[in-house]
């Protein structure tokens, strides 16, 4: 049984369009079309000029992040039945549009790379893996699951205002993921790397990131944890210096 669904979709092709516009679609969906991505694929059957990213279609790759009725999310895990019509789709805000729903994520990944999202460990490589206690491993829960879809960072006004300086919730969540890793040896450098007034401290806790994360993660808590650790680290440095000076006396 056909089910008609109305859409209003952001269209922009820099080669042919002077400016972006919203295009309306009224599409007949099939019974097996449950998710927004199913509907978008159905639209593409009628209008193959519509551009978007997609891959795993099950909320793992993060490719099809977009602004859905004003809120960032993944098309593949958003139920059509949960959406009000007309369903308004726009590219994620705060990033340059390449075409239609496809954004240029270069800035996003530059910030991601800037937090060194990999283990830094200068010990000789063990024969097998670097071991972790179950407690230390548990500290990575809620951090390692990030799929880098960009929904959080592009819904953050602090990123909109300072996209070149503020690392953004996704990058900071990843920074915290490696700060919290018991196998990592670069905690000091990682904390130092976030010291200027922009990279970390532009976060004003408005929590859009928590609201939109399709994996239900909490970048805001990760950011708060980094701030706490920075204070703790500064206090420890002071204590160590004091001990050294007492010994010297």
């Amino acid at each position, binding site marked *: 049984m056909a089910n008609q669904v109305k859409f209003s979709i952001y269209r922009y092709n820099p080669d042919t369009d002077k400016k972006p516009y919203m295009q309306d679609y009224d599409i007949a969906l099939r019974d097996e079309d449950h998710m927004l991505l199913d509907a978008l694929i159905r639209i593409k059957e009628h209008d193959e000029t519509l551009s978007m990213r997609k891959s795993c279609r099950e909320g793992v790759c993060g490719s099809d992040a977009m602004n859905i009725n004003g809120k960032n999310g993944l098309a593949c895990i958003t139920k059509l039945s949960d959406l009000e019509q007309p369903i308004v789709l726009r590219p994620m805000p705060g990033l340059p549009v390449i075409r239609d729903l496809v954004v240029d994520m270069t800035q996003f990944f530059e910030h991601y790379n800037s937090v060194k999202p990999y283990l830094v460990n200068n010990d000789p490589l063990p024969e097998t893996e670097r071991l972790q206690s179950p407690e230390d491993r548990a500290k990575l829960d809620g951090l390692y699951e990030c799929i880098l879809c960009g929904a959080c960072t592009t819904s953050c006004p602090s990123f909109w205002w300072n996209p070149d300086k503020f690392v953004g919730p996704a990058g900071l969540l990843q920074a915290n993921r490696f700060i919290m890793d018991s196998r990592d040896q670069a905690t000091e450098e990682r904390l130092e790397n976030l010291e200027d*007034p922009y*990279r970390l*401290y532009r976060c004003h806790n408005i929590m859009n990131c928590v609201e939109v994360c399709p994996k239900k993660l909490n970048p805001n808590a990760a950011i708060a944890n980094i701030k706490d650790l920075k204070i703790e680290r500064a206090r420890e440095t002071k204590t160590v210096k004091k001990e050294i000076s007492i010994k010297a006396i």
Partner: protein
Amino acid sequence: MLIQLLTNKYPGMRLWLSQRLSALMMAAYILLLVLLLAIYQPASYSDWHKFVAPIWFRLVTFVFFISLFMHAWLGVSDVFKDYIFNLKLRAYLQAIVDILLVTYLIWASFILWNI
């Protein structure tokens, strides 16, 4: 420790922590004020005069005003960092705010020491 945290070694943390510390100072002062008002309940001019006259109260109130203006300075600077991208314009606006806040602080101290 506090002084070290508020020095140039931690520019980002310094601003962030100062904002929270000044907020805590203001909260503590407001609690103290509510408590004192509940105890003394000044009703007339002479009651109020007696209430605010002690040196310790004026000093504490002066510290409150310092915290208030510091908090305001940090908040407005944050807003400028977020929204004003022209550095010259930002510097001008910041200078206006700085002058205003310093004037308010001097004004507040005049009021406090002329009771």
